[in-house]
């Protein structure tokens, strides 16, 4: 977009503000999403859930909206961590982890909700540019000097494993327009969703062109008795060990008293 056209658009938007009834609404659509809470606590028995995110389109073109040419993709992305992918190979008949590839900053979870199938919304290239969708996420190998074929193989294995365990998911049709402005997105939270700061992002496409992005943060915490144990085991690991040993001795001693035979 040249400076002249940007200037023209600015004028037009001024005009639109002044004259709301103007026939031509300028292309200043934007997208907003809202979360009802900025933190979710999940209990130990958590078996997965759907998270609903509401959002709105601002200044949509009614004509385009009516033709259904607005598309929204909502992503809930988990914290990024390094991951080692290992491959088992047969050595003398035994399956052994031989080859491995480490990737930096791999989102632990990645749930997508879309209005339509991804391939119908826009070109593969723009997904690549936006690094949008599980298959377009760039996985940074720790050793970029490894052969591209190997890296490609382990990258796809990483995606496949993540999808198989439900951490990477795609919910086609998970974004629905409730009115011209309002939409609702349903993203899946896997049972083994990691704790930490998750990022919800919404991408707006207009007739296959990317328009705008908006994001919000969501903290996922685990709560309950089991979680306290987990925290103690990590934060006070020595005391936890002492407790585990004492519990075992106590159980052994009580067992002798209760079932005493001699």
């Amino acid at each position: 977009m040249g400076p002249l056209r940007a200037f023209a658009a600015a004028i037009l938007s001024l005009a639109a503000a002044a004259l709301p009834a103007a026939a031509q609404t300028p292309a200043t659509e934007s997208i907003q999403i809202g979360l009802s809470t900025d933190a979710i606590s999940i209990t130990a028995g958590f078996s997965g859930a759907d998270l609903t995110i509401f959002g709105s389109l601002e200044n949509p073109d009614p004509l385009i909206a009516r033709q259904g040419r607005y598309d929204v993709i909502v992503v809930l992305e988990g914290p990024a961590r390094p991951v080692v992918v290992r491959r088992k190979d047969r050595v003398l008949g035994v399956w052994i982890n031989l080859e491995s590839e480490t990737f930096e900053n791999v989102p632990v979870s990645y749930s997508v909700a879309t209005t339509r199938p991804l391939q119908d919304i826009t070109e593969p290239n723009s997904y690549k540019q936006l690094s949008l969708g599980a298959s377009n996420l760039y996985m940074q190998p720790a050793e970029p000097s490894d052969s591209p074929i190997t890296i490609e193989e382990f990258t796809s294995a990483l995606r496949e494993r993540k999808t198989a365990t439900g951490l990477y998911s795609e919910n086609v049709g998970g974004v629905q327009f409730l009115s011209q402005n309002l939409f609702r997105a349903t993203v899946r939270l896997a049972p083994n969703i990691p704790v930490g700061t998750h990022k919800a992002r919404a991408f707006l496409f207009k007739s296959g062109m990317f328009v705008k992005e908006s994001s919000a943060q969501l903290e996922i915490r685990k709560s309950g008795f089991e979680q306290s144990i987990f925290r103690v085991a990590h934060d006070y690991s020595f005391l936890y060990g002492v407790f585990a040993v004492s519990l075992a001795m106590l159980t052994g001693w009580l067992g002798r008293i209760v079932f005493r035979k001699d």
Partner: protein
Amino acid sequence: MGIYLPIAEISVNVFVLLAMGAAVGFLSGMFGVGGGFLITPLLIFYNIPPAIAVATGANQVIASSFSGALSHFKRGTLDFKLGGVLLAGGIVGSTAGIYVFALLRRLGQLDLFISLLYVALLGTVGGLMLVESVNALRASRSGAAPVLKKSGQHNWIHRLPFKMRFRASKLFVSIIPVLGLGAAIGFLSSIMGVGGGFIMVPALIYLLKVPTNVVIGTSLFQIIFTSAYTTLVHATTNQTVDVILAFLLMAGGVAGAQYGAKAGQRLRGEQLRALLALLVLAVAIRLAIDLFVTPPNRYSLAGLT
């Protein structure tokens, strides 16, 4: 009834774990073994990550050996001095084991190494026991008097230097094999989550010629401390001890052990050993099969540790 294990991070059935603990407790009461060598593989079969199965197995072993050692302490069939020297070796072995454990985990070879050790050790011990007990059964059937071991016979172990006197065991022996045995058991304890009684008992009897009546008490005494040390170090360095899991196994275990001990009194020694040998071999074979069968997925993910 499902329960979520905070460290293993999976949901399991409480009754399955209690039953597992009770079954192993029953067998350990019947055969007079700690049962760690059965608990860890069973947990692995139940999809508990091997690293957690091992550390939790070590924790569970404390309960059964503590309760057993108490009765031996009351009866005075426990050699504290011998146990103490074994323990000194055990601490060194366990520390080395924890280091190897963490290293293998980083290399992604821990699961394989645990399985291989189990297959090798259980296969050998089970095979030897089976041969020995079948021979004994045959001998008793043909009416021949069992060949008595000649006592007082000295082997190469008794020619080693640094001798020490162990009064309760009526033993005057070099401390080198005692420390070495303790270290080997400590190493296995931290890598396999076993108490090591099934190696310790025959080694004390046949190698060091410790009188049979103090063997079990002394072995249990040293196992308490070696596995307590192992549990502590696993908890601090790897955070792999799951107390909920350990408690369920212990609770089932102490109950099962009492009934097992009663049942054991009704069976004859050779039959008992043949049964235990078959059980040990079955676990070894099951673990071996898993090594050779094509895995459902060749790729696995792990965090950086």
